[in-house]
């Protein structure tokens, strides 16, 4: 059929099964918005800032496992979206982001709201396109969805000049994407998998090192199966939280800069790392030359460039984690779980020596208590987003995660302002779950305008501010490494968050005691409205354990023991 470029965008989105688009209109994208107005197949959610549109699409993608879609205009609309693209790129989140562009005839003339969008997005997307003719649009849009979701997922950016959205051309979407130059390897090499299994059988102290790729590959339940059948303990990266249940006997905890003592010690003592969809990030390894010195490495990853990038792999396996783990399960009989009993015992002793915990305070609420308490009250019923900082680490440490895609956070880029819009996207994707955003008094103000979107669209996100009147994580580093010179991190000057929430039509609570917190949370859940719960917490609490940047993983600053 002969339709306009703008209509093609709508048709393509419908055929891709898109039910929600986050975006913000403007001059160059108006033809597409005119078509959005005329259709009723998907919902458009008007965020109040383009950055939030991308984060919402990320939250939506992470919670649902589908491709997230966002739409922005040219120039500032696009540049506002760049942080979101970079965030999605770092955390391998499948997105298709469509931006308007000035008409072809004006490209290169410094036209109003013109910017070289594909030039900017090139380094923070998996792939990008500048569409120069409407006849290319069906192919490009179909490729965009395919590339975003396949292989190692990531954001794809499609920049469409205004005249292309007006141009009429033939639309045909019934074809298979064929990209001669892009064929991700999904099936692991069977011989290599067999060798890896034999190495596991021979190891004395093997350790599963689970990364975000397990969740991206929808492999968490297969991995649970493999962990249980082998009896091998597991550590999770920040991005992998929820892969194993929090109460799984074989889950040690999170490892890395703020990982548990037992997790970091296990990683330092293991003789065989079984890395599944993890990429040996610097926040995980600490000082590379001291990292897991005695260990051989099995590394399973869909992205060949992640293998042997930082840590040499003795058994490199390129493939989809789910596919490879299924293969491993077929060979699991060669492994005798009882063999690792002494190793499991060692790890239990590590954990008994320095358990992941915190000291309660009778005067003030401890931030960690809030997270544990939400876990007790809501547990599996909630999906948990976070912003970036201390509250984010405490959430990863203390929330009792029970399933994959329950925890949504900005890991790679560490984007303050991610949490609230992401939690909105999570709510749109999983309306039957309570959407919680743990945030800080710094982060929440970075996308606070989304109070309006969430109220308007009835997406009841509950924002829980762990308010310490500080830019807490930076303050912690200043305390520890800059002789307490708290440069520009004191956030004592604050808005009245209760009134702020109310001004937008949400509910606000100011909480200073545990009883007040319970009441506020229960009320917010019951009212099912957008809420801010502003919790006054201990100001100078530090996130512990901590491996100082560049230090060895086994050299942790630990929580001081309290005499009983």
């Amino acid at each position, binding site marked *: 059929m002969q339709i306009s470029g703008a209509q093609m965008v709508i048709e393509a989105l419908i055929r891709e099964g898109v039910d929600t688009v986050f975006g913000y209109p403007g001059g160059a994208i108006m033809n597409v918005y005119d078509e959005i107005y005329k259709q009723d197949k998907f919902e458009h959610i008007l965020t109040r800032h383009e950055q939030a549109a991308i984060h919402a699409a990320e939250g939506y993608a992470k919670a649902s496992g589908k491709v997230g879609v966002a739409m922005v205009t040219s120039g500032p609309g696009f540049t506002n979206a760049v942080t979101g693209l970079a965030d999605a790129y770092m955390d391998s989140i499948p997105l298709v982001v469509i931006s308007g562009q000035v008409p072809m005839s004006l490209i290169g003339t410094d036209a109003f709201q013109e910017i070289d969008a594909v030039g900017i997005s090139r380094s923070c997307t998996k792939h990008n396109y500048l569409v120069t003719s409407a006849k290319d649009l069906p192919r490009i849009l179909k490729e965009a969805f395919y590339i975003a979701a396949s292989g190692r997922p990531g954001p794809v950016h499609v920049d469409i000049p205004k005249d292309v959205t007006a141009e009429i051309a033939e639309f045909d979407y019934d074809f298979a994407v064929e*990209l001669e130059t892009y064929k991700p390897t999904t099936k692991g090499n069977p011989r290599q998998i067999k060798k890896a299994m034999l190495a596991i059988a021979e190891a004395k102290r093997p350790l599963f090192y689970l990364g975000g790729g397990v969740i991206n590959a929808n492999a968490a339940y297969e991995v649970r199966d493999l962990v249980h059948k082998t009896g091998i303990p597991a550590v999770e990266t920040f991005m992998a939280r929820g892969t194993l249940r929090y109460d799984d006997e074989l889950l040690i905890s999170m490892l890395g800069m703020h990982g548990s003592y037992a997790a970091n010690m296990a990683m330092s003592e293991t003789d065989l790392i079984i890395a599944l969809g993890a990429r040996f990030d610097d926040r995980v390894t600490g000082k590379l030359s001291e990292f897991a010195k005695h260990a051989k490495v099995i590394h399973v990853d869909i992205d060949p*460039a992640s293998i042997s990038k930082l840590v040499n792999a003795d058994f490199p396996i390129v493939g989809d984690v789910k596919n490879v783990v299924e293969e491993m399960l077929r060979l699991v009989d060669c492994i005798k779980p009882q063999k690792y009993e002494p190793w499991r015992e060692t790890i239990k002793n590590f954990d008994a020596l320095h358990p992941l915990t915190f000291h309660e305070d009778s005067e003030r609420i401890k931030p960690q208590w809030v997270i544990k308490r939400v876990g007790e009250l809501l547990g599996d019923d909630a999906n948990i987003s976070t912003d970036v900082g201390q509250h984010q680490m405490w959430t990863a440490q203390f929330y009792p995660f029970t399933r994959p895609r329950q925890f949504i956070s900005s890991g790679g880029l560490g984007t303050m302002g991610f949490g609230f819009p992401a939690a909105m996207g999570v709510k749109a994707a999983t309306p039957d779950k309570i959407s919680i955003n743990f945030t800080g008094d710094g982060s929440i103000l970075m996308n606070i305008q989304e109070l309006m979107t969430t109220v308007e669209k009835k997406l009841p996100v509950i924002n829980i501010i762990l308010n310490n009147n500080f830019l807490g994580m930076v303050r912690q580093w200043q305390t520890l490494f800059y002789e307490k010179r708290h440069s520009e991190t004191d956030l004592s000057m604050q808005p009245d968050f209760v009134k702020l929430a109310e001004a937008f039509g949400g509910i606000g609570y100011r909480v200073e005691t545990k009883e007040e917190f319970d009441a506020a949370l229960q009320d917010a859940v019951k009212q099912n409205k957008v809420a801010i719960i502003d919790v006054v917490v201990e100001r100078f609490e530090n996130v512990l354990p901590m491996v100082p940047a560049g230090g060895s993983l086994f050299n942790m600053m630990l929580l001081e023991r309290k005499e009983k």
Partner: protein
Amino acid sequence: MNENIRRVVSVIVINEASVLSRVTDLFSARGYNIQSLTVAPIPETKYSRLTIVTKGSVRVIEQIVKQLHKLIPVLKVFDHEDFVEKEMALVKFPADERLADIAAICEAYNGKIVNASENAIIAMVADEPQRVTNFLKVTKRYNPKEVVRSGAVALER
């Protein structure tokens, strides 16, 4: 392992808009080194061939190859092991320099005088990059006014 080695890498890419920027952006974004880069379409195909001379540790070279592979329009990457490598240079000499001497040196380096006008003589050589360097060294005394090197191209044996 950490020692820097010189490598010649050929990349076959779809000949489309901005593909060269994708490659060069990758090098600058990840802090890789480009010593020379040549690019031209492969006749009768939709592809182009880039030849990149780079330097880095074994690990870095391995990453360069893998990261290049990850770019969507990249079809193939060759990290050359056993190959023929050639580079071309054009050199402009003042017309009053000794033409016969220059011509003799050119001959020794697989080159010749390709243009002589009233103002200048232009010589061309095509040889291994190291030999081109030597040629430029030897002809320095004839006061070259301008030198242009093409960058290397390579084919696996």
